[in-house]
């Protein structure tokens, strides 16, 4: 024991000698020359299958305050063409030229793709923005069809057919004694190109603020309300009667326009959350200033679109118990102001 202590003491002496070569802090001028750089990452040959795991979501209560457990089953992620998870194969998500990125960059260097194909700056200048992005979209000749065979979804995605995935999840809600609601969701040929979450600090508000976009492109999304193989759910006809099919659907959900309408999410002193999109013209004092802010907002802020080319329940034929709701869309949603406050039920 004593020898060991002596050795350690001497080793320490040695290290302290080495450590005399000091590190100096960079001064501000040198720091400002540092450019943000980030990581790109690609998920190669990925396959996720949670069939052998039991995942339960708790703390959603019913009207009497009792827990309603939600079981999550049949969660999978694999290559497109898996036939609702029956034949799972690995898939590569993200391309080496358009990977997922985790990036710390200046606001003036970041861009978003506008609906008309022009890249615009949406984040404020002179702030350091932490950005987590999905594979970015590609304009020009290299752009890929976001949904194969459906031109209205655009051709400015970077994911090719080999980078589109099949994703499935099943929720079992034990809503009441003897009654379990099942929602079996399967998404075919999913791409999420152009989605991102950007966060930065707003010194005027003393708050972390951000902007986000969630893009979902899917060739097909089916929701079956029974468990395959259970009563009334064994034959193909039974299963079809209990399936809601969304074909060629895409959603571009945009929250926040960093320059004048950042997304504010906070928790108030009552322990309730508050989600806010402030008035983008609030920064202007004269009518002319407000007009400029409004024009910039309406021209450049990304909008929310949800398009379902065909929504069909069951067979889609009313005479056999189905229904075909046809084309449904919500287009060009722009939010001038939003404040969502939660409260106890």
């Amino acid at each position, binding site marked *: 024991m004593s*020898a060991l202590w*002596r*050795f350690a003491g*001497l*080793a320490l*002496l*040695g290290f302290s*000698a*080495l450590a*005399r*070569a000091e590190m100096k802090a960079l001064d501000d001028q040198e720091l400002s020359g540092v*450019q943000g*750089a*980030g*990581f*790109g*990452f*690609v*998920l*190669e*040959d*990925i*396959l*996720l*299958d*949670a*069939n*052998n*795991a*039991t*995942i*339960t*979501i*708790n*703390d959603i*209560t019913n009207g009497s305050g*009792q*827990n309603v457990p939600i079981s999550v089953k049949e969660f999978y992620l694999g290559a497109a063409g898996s036939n609702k998870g029956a034949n799972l194969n*690995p898939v590569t998500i993200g*391309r*080496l*030229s358009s*990977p997922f*990125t985790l*990036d710390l960059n200046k606001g003036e260097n970041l861009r978003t793709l506008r609906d008309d194909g022009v890249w615009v700056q949406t984040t404020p200048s002179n702030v350091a923005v932490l950005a987590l992005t999905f594979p970015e979209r590609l304009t020009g000749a290299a752009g890929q069809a976001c949904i194969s065979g459906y031109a209205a979804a655009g051709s400015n995605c970077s994911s090719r057919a*080999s980078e589109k995935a099949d994703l499935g999840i099943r929720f079992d809600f034990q809503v009441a004694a003897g009654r379990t609601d099942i929602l079996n969701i399967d998404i075919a040929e999913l791409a999420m190109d152009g989605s991102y979450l950007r966060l930065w600090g707003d010194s005027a*508000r*003393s*708050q*972390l603020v951000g902007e986000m976009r969630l893009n979902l492109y899917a060739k097909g999304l089916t929701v079956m309300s029974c468990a395959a193989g259970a009563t009334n759910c064994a034959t193909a006809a039974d299963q079809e009667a209990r399936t809601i099919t969304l074909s060629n659907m895409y959603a571009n959900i945009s929250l926040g326009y960093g320059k004048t309408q950042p997304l504010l999410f*906070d*928790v*108030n*002193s*009552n*322990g*309730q*959350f508050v989600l806010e999109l402030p008035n983008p013209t609030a920064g202007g004092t004269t009518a002319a200033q407000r007009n400029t802010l409004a024009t910039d907002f309406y021209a450049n802020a990304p909008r929310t679109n949800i398009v379902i080319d065909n929504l069909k329940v069951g067979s889609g034929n009313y005479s056999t118990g189905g229904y075909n709701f046809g084309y449904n869309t919500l287009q060009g949603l722009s939010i001038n102001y939003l404040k969502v406050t*939660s409260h*106890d039920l």
Partner: protein
Amino acid sequence: MTFKRIEWLVLWLALLLPALARSELQPMADDALSATRGQGGVYLSGDFSVNKNGGVLWSTPTTNTASAWTANQRSCATLGASSPEDCGMRLAIRAEAAGGWYVLDNMKGVFSFDGLTLRTRFIDSGFNGDGATFAQDTLEFGLPNEVKFQDTRFTFAVANQGGWRNKAGTAANGGDASYQQTNIFSAKIDGSIRMQGNVLVFPKN
């Protein structure tokens, strides 16, 4: 005072090293560096448990009645459970000066994996043609084929204070009636999840 031989050696080295250290490290020329190739990699297996038997902040009480808990007692049982349970790790983040907190509460469980690999890989082919134009080194994390979970859970909540307080407890027992935490949802995972594939990480400028 007697020194063993090894200790004399270390002592001399300690005296000499400052002299050595003053001779500068020279950067290697780029062509010499590029000729250096990484070899091999790392293969990891692990068995992690977080707060499997509770943590250091709270001791487990005997009942789930919050009003009966004494100071520093807390049970994190699922809503509707009959017996009290140990509590997991708590992480609270405040996104606004003088605002409320986002909380990841009751993080605990055991998870184990076998076969997480880590190595560098130079990619200049494959990937449906992208590899040839890429031609860079990447850090490849090979996912373990199976990750096993045992009673792994967490709760996502919002609260008006970062640290947990017993809302139903008396002041004498360390309670704080003004504390408000709203659990949005909790998740619990048991069993094994198959996750195969590689995560390739590389710098992006």
